[in-house]
């Protein structure tokens, strides 16, 4: 398990005084179907993008709250990574995108029948969003509406 005490001094000082946003109340949807019948989508905060897409802006104050759509048949090795945070070691993710964007694993689970169907698109957000106001008000609800339109029942979220 990682801990905040593993972070660099700069990051520790920032995190020590940071006030996290809490969900209150905690929304809690029951799955409509067992996993083997459900449509499943993947959401990462690894900042991955298709080579044809404009990368996230790593310099934006408060963080870049936009997201990118990644088609389910994408070769994950071709994805760019815009997340250049110094808060963690990126070597593993750069060696194997599945570490934070496990699209290959989910395709295998779909093929084996463990997962009903994989949604047509996965979504990629950026990490390092310290000012999440627009994320909460705009881009997260937009992302939820897109996945709802795709008929998604279950979403797996992976932070980096």
């Amino acid at each position: 398990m990682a801990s905040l005490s593993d972070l660099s001094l700069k990051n520790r000082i920032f995190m020590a005084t940071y006030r996290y946003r809490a969900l209150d109340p905690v929304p809690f949807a029951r799955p409509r179907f067992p996993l083997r019948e459900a449509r499943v989508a993947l959401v990462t905060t690894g900042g991955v993008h298709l080579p044809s897409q404009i990368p996230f802006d790593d310099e934006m104050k408060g963080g870049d709250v936009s997201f990118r759509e990644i088609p389910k048949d994408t070769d994950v090795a071709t994805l760019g990574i815009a997340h250049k945070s110094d808060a963690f070691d990126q070597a593993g993710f750069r060696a194997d995108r599945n570490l934070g964007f496990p699209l290959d694993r989910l395709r295998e689970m779909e093929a084996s029948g463990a997962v009903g169907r994989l949604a047509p698109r996965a979504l990629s957000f950026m990490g390092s969003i310290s000012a999440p106001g627009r994320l909460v008000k705009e881009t997260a609800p937009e992302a939820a509406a897109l996945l709802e339109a795709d008929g998604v029942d279950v979403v797996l979220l992976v932070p980096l």
Partner: protein
Amino acid sequence: MCHQTVGLIAGALERCGIATTSVTMLKEVTVKVRTPRALAVPYALGYPLGKPGDPALQTRILRAAFALLDVPGPGPVLADFSAA
């Protein structure tokens, strides 16, 4: 910050009736944000699914994260992944 973002996006999805599950390397942040469902993994930041090039371990973590969907709730649901 990634962990807060995951919790807030999960909140937006759950409010639309979409069930979510997630992985966390920073339990202390996930507890503060009150992420609806999260599997705590014993790995460093940047390594949510354990090890690069280890599909068997990655799949075990994913199965454990999806298993949280069977917990009746109410949320937040937070469980530890055991690599043993």
